[in-house]
C-alpha cells in the first residue's frame, strides 16, 4: 500500500498562496506575485501527476480493480457522537483524473495569465483569487464526504463570483457576477436539501459508505417513500439540482454566457474546464447511488442533458460574440456528459456511458480550455469580442491559428483527435440505451461541427478586415500554454480510459463502434463543409440563410428569450405577488415588534439606573436583600 498522505499538500499549498498573495500581494508587486502563484501551481501539478502515476500504475490491483483510498482524514467538527464532519482526501479513479484536469488546466491558465493580464490593475488580486479557486476546486474534487464537497462547492462558487466580477468598475461584470452567484446559489439550495435528506436517511456523509455497491447505506432508509418515489430518489434529484446550477444545464444555464464578462483566462479555467463540470463530477461521484436506488433520477439527468445540449448548440449557431459561442458550446458539451451518465449502467460494459462521460470530461477540458485561451489571444490582438470585427487572422496569428484549428477538429469529432474518441463512446452508449436520445445527440454532433467551424472560418479566413493596427501574435507566456493544450487536445484520445476510469474500478473491453463512428464522422464533416461554404469567403450567403429561417433565427439569436422569461417571472410575479407582501409584513409586523422590544428595553434601562447609585451602603443593602430574597424563595416558596 502506498502512503498518499502527502496529498493534503494539494490543498495546503494553494491556500497558503491565497493568503500570501491576498495579504502581502501589494507588497510583493505584480511580477513576484504572478511568479509565486504560478510556481505554487507548478508544484501542485507535479504532485498531481505523481499521485496519478502511483495510483494508476503503482498500486497492486490483484484483479480487484481500483479501490477508493482515504489518503488523509481528520475530524473537523465532532458535533455529537455519531455526527461528525471530516476534512480529508479521497483518491479514486475519477478524483485522480480530476486532479490531473484541474491542476494541468489551472497551471496553463496561470502561465497564460502572466502574459494576458500584464499591466492590469489588480494583477496580484487576480492571482490570489486564482489560488483560492484552485484550492476550492481541488478540495471539491478530493472530498471524501458530501459535506466537505458542499463546503468547497460553495467556495468554488465564491471564487467564481470574485473572478467574474474582477473588473468591478464595469457594471456589466458586476451584474454578471451577481447573476452567476445568485443562480447557482439558488440551485445549491436544492443540493443542500438533497444532502439533508440523504444523510438523514442513510446516517452518513461518507462517499465510500454511500456508494458501496452492496448498498448498506441505502438499506438503512428502509424503503421510505414520498409521493411514489423513494426518499433516495428525491434526495438524488435535489442533489442533481445543485449540479444543474453549477454545470449550467437547462433551465439554470442563464448565468454561463454572462459569466464571460470575466477575464478570458478565468473563462477558460472556471467556465470551461473545471468548475462547470463539477455537476457532472457530482453525479459521477454518487453514480452507484443513482444506478442502484434512483433510476428515475438518472432518466431526468439523461433528458435534461440531451435537451440542454441541443438547445445550446442551436443558440451557438447564431451568436457573434466568440466567447459566448464558446460558452454555449460548453453547455452543449456538458449536456453530452450528463446524457452519457444518464444512459449508463453499473459495472463492466454496462458502465460504458460512465466511462465515456469521464473520458469526454477529460478531453473536453483540454480542447475547451485551448479554445478559450485561443480566443483570449485573438481578443488580445484585435481588441474586440465580436467575430464580425475579425477575419483573415491566420496570417497574423499563426500559432493561435494552428492550435485553434486543432481544438476545433477535436471538438467536431474528426478522427484521431481526442474529441472523436470520447464523443464516439458517448454516442455508442446512447445508441445502446435509447435510440431517441442518440438521434438528438447525433444532430447535435452535426451542429457542433457547424458552429465551431463557423467560428473558425469567420475568424481566420473570411473577409479581409482592416485593423487599426496590425494584429500581432501573443507573447511566449501565452503561446506555450496553447501549444501544450493543443498536444492534449490532439493526443489524449489515446488514453485507455476503459482500463482506468470505470464505474466499478474494473477494466473492461471496449472498441470503436464503427456503426456509430462512421455516421458521426460523416455528419461532422458535413457540418464543417456547410460552414466552409458559408463562411470561408466573404459572401451574403449567411444572411440569406438567416432571413430564410427568420423567426427561428431570431429566437435562437435571442437565446429563446430565456433571460426575459426569468425577468418576467421574478419581477412581474415573484416580486409583486410574493416579495411585496412579505416586505410589508417585515416592515410593519416584524420590525414593529422589534422596535417595541427595543423601546421597552430602553425605557426599562433608563428607569432602573437609580440602582447604581455609587453609594456603598446601598450596595450592601441590595446585597443582603438579595440573600434574603433567595432564602425566601428557596426555603419558603419553592420548598
Amino acid at each position: 500500500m502506498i502512503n498518499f498522505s502527502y496529498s493534503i499538500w494539494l490543498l495546503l499549498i494553494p491556500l497558503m498562496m491565497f493568503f500570501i498573495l491576498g495579504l502581502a500581494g501589494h507588497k510583493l508587486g505584480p511580477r513576484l506575485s504572478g511568479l509565486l502563484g504560478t510556481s505554487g501551481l507548478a508544484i501542485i501539478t507535479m504532485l498531481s501527476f505523481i499521485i496519478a502515476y502511483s495510483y494508476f500504475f503503482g498500486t497492486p490491483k490483484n484483479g480487484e480493480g481500483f479501490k477508493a483510498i482515504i489518503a488523509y482524514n481528520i475530524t473537523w467538527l465532532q458535533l455529537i457522537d455519531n455526527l461528525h464532519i471530516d476534512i480529508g482526501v479521497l483518491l479514486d479513479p475519477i478524483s485522480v483524473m480530476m486532479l490531473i484536469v484541474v491542476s494541468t488546466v489551472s497551471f496553463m491558465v496561470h502561465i497564460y495569465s502572466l502574459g494576458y493580464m500584464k499591466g492590469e490593475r489588480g494583477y496580484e488580486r487576480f492571482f490570489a483569487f486564482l489560488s483560492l479557486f484552485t484550492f476550492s476546486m481541488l478540495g471539491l474534487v478530493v472530498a471524501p464526504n458530501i459535506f466537505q464537497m458542499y463546503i468547497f462547492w460553495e467556495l468554488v462558487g465564491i471564487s467564481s463570483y470574485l473572478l467574474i466580477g474582477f473588473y468591478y468598475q464595469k457594471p456589466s461584470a458586476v451584474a454578471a457576477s451577481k447573476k452567476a452567484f445568485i443562480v447557482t446559489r439558488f440551485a445549491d439550495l436544492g443540493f443542500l436539501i438533497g444532502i439533508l435528506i440523504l444523510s438523514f436517511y442513510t446516517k452518513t456523509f461518507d462517499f465510500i459508505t454511500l456508494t458501496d455497491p452492496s448498498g448498506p447505506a441505502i438499506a438503512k432508509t428502509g424503503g421510505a417513500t414520498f409521493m411514489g418515489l423513494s426518499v433516495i430518489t428525491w434526495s438524488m434529484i435535489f442533489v442533481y439540482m445543485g449540479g444543474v446550477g453549477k454545470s449550467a444545464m437547462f433551465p439554470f444555464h442563464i448565468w454561463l454566457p454572462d459569466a464571460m464578462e470575466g477575464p478570458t483566462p478565468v473563462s477558460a479555467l472556471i467556465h470551461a474546464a473545471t468548475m462547470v463540470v463539477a455537476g457532472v463530477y457530482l453525479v459521477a461521484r454518487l453514480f452507484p447511488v443513482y444506478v442502484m436506488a434512483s433510476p428515475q433520477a438518472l432518466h431526468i439527468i439523461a433528458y435534461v442533458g440531451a435537451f440542454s445540449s441541443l438547445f445550446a448548440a442551436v443558440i451557438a449557431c447564431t451568436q457573434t460574440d466568440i466567447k459566448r459561442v464558446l460558452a454555449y458550446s460548453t453547455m452543449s458539451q456538458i449536456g453530452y456528459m450528463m446524457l452519457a451518465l444518464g444512459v449508463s449502467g453499473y459495472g463492466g460494459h454496462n458502465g460504458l456511458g460512465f466511462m465515456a462521460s469521464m473520458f469526454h470530461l477529460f478531453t473536453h477540458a483540454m480542447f475547451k480550455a485551448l479554445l478559450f485561451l485561443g480566443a483570449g489571444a485573438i481578443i488580445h490582438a484585435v481588441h474586440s469580442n465580436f467575430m464580425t470585427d475579425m477575419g483573415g487572422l491566420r496570417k497574423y496569428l499563426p500559432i493561435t491559428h494552428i492550435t485553434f484549428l486543432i481544438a476545433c477538429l477535436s471538438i467536431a469529432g474528426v478522427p484521431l483527435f481526442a474529441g472523436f474518441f470520447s464523443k464516439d463512446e458517448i454516442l455508442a452508449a446512447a445508441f445502446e440505451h435509447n435510440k431517441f436520445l442518440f438521434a438528438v445527440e447525433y444532430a447535435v454532433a452535426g451542429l457542433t461541427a457547424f458552429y465551431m467551424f463557423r467560428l473558425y472560418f469567420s475568424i481566420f479566413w473570411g473577409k479581409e478586415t482592416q485593423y487599426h493596427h496590425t494584429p500581432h501574435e501573443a507573447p511566449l507566456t501565452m503561446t506555450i500554454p496553447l501549444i501544450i493544450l493543443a498536444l492534449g487536445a490532439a493526443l489524449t484520445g489515446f488514453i485507455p480510459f476503459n482500463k482506468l476510469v470505470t464505474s466499478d474500478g474494473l477494466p473492461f473491453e471496449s472498441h470503436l463502434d464503427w456503426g456509430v463512428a462512421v455516421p458521426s464522422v460523416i455528419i461532422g464533416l458535413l457540418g464543417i463543409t456547410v460552414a466552409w461554404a458559408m463562411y470561408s469567403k466573404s459572401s451574403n450567403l449567411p444572411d440569406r440563410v438567416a432571413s430564410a429561417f427568420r423567426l427561428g433565427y431570431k429566437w435562437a439569436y435571442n437565446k429563446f428569450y430565456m433571460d426575459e422569461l426569468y425577468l418576467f417571472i421574478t419581477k412581474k410575479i415573484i416580486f409583486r405577488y410574493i416579495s411585496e407582501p412579505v416586505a410589508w409584513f417585515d416592515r410593519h409586523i416584524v420590525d414593529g415588534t422589534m422596535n417595541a422590544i427595543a423601546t421597552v428595553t430602553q425605557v426599562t434601562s433608563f428607569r432602573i439606573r437609580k440602582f447604581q447609585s455609587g453609594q456603598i451602603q446601598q450596595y450592601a443593602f441590595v446585597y443582603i436583600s438579595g440573600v434574603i430574597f433567595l432564602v425566601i424563595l428557596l426555603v419558603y416558596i419553592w420548598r
Partner: protein
Amino acid sequence: MNLQDFLLMRQELLLTLAAIIVLAAEIFWNPAKKKSVIFFAIIIFSLVTAAGMIPSEDGYLFGGMYISTGLMRLMKNILDIGVLIILVQSYTWLMKPENEERISEYFILIFTTLVGMDFMISSGHFLMFYLGLELATIPVAALAAFERYKNKSAEAGIKLILISSLSSGVLLFGISMIYGTSGLLYFYDLSKVFAGGSLQILGFIFFFAGMAFKISIVPFHLWTADVYEGAPVNITSFLSVISKGAALFIFIIVLYTVFPVIIESWQKTILVTSILTMTIGNLFAIRQQNIKRFLAFSSISQAGYILLGIIGANQAGMTSVVYYMIVYIFSNLGAFGVITAISNATGKENIDDYNGLYQTNPKLSLTMTLALFSLAGIPPVAGFFGKFFLFAAAAEKGFYFLVLIAVLNTIISLYYYLLVVKAMFINKNENPVMKFKSDIPTRFGLMICVLGIFLTGFASIIYEYIKNLSFGI
C-alpha cells in the same frame, strides 16, 4: 513531603517563589534600572506558566485539603495564560513615571493573588477554600487602589474591600451552618452526608452569595461597575477575567461535588439569578458612556450566560464553561488590550472618544471589532462556539425557557457591542484619537488575543481535551 508532593503543588510553590524573587529584586536591584524588573518578572512568570503545562499525576496532599486533578491544573493553566497576557499588556502603563516606583509591588500583588486562586481551585476542604479566597481578594483591592493619587482608584479599592468583607462574612456564615449541621468541612465527606435540610439550604444560599459577589451575579454585582471604572485598566481586565474565572471554576467544582443532593434548589437559584444577571447586565450596559464601565456590565451579562453551562450539571456543561472561559479570556483581554493602548496613549476612556477610530488606528479598531464580535457570539469567531456549547448544554437538560431568554439577551447585547463598532467605523469625529504606534509588548499581547479568538473556535481538539477532564453529576 517528598519530591513527588512538590510536583503536585508546583504551580503554587513556583508562584510563591516568583513573588519572593521579585521582592528580592526590589530590594537588591539597581534603583536606576528599576524598569528592567518588568521584563525580569514577565520572564519568570512565563517560566512558571510553562512549568504548569508539564503533565503530571493526579493526587492530594495534607490529608485531602489540597487536591490536584487534570481539570484543576488545566484551570490554573488557563488563568496563568490570561495573567501572562495582562502582564504583557501592563508594560506601557508600568513604564509611566508615576508607577515606576512600584513596579515590583504590582507583580508581587498579582502573583500573590494568583497563589490564592490556585489554592482555592485546588482546595478539598472549606477552610482551605476560604483561605485561598481571601488571599485572592485582598491583594486585588490593593491593586484596584494602585493609582492612589486618583480619587476614583482609591474609591474603587475601598469599595472592593468593604463589599468583599461583607461577602466573606456571609460566606463564612454559610460555611459555619454547613459545619454545624454535619460536623464536616471536607468536600468529599460532605457529599456523603449532605441531606438537604433547611439549615443546609440556608448554608448553601450564603455560600452562593459569597461566590456570586466574586462572579458578580445580580443582585450581588453592584460593586462591579464602580470598581471597574475606578481601577486602572489592567486591573479591571484582571478583575473581569481572572478573578471571575477563578471563582467560577471553584464554584462549579464545589457545586458538583458538595451539593449534588440539593441540585433542585441550586438549579432554581441559578435559573433566577442567571436570568436577572443577563438581563440587568445588558440593560445597564446599553446606557454606559465610559468604555470600562460598559465592559463591566457586559462582563456581568457574560457571567449570566456562563451560568447556563453550570445549571445542566452535566459533563457537557462543565466542558462548555471551561471552554467559554478560554474564549472569554482572549476576547475580553483583546478588548481591554485596545482600551489599555488607547488609554495609555491619550487617556481617553469614553465611547464617544472612539468615534472615527478606524480612520486613525485601523488595526486597533479591527482588533476591538473582532473581540466584540467574539463577546457577542458572532460566527465564525470563538465566541460563537463558546455560546453555542453553553446554550446546548442547558438545552440538553431541558432548560428551554432559560435558553430562550439567553438568546434574547444575546440579541440585546449585539446592539450595544455594535454601537461601539459603529462608533469606530461610521461615526464622524472632529477630534479623533490621534494616530499612534503601540509598543511591541502591547502589539504582542493583542496578537495573542486575536490568534486565540480564531484558533479556539476552529480547533475542536481544545474542546475534546477539556471534555475528557470534565465531569457532571
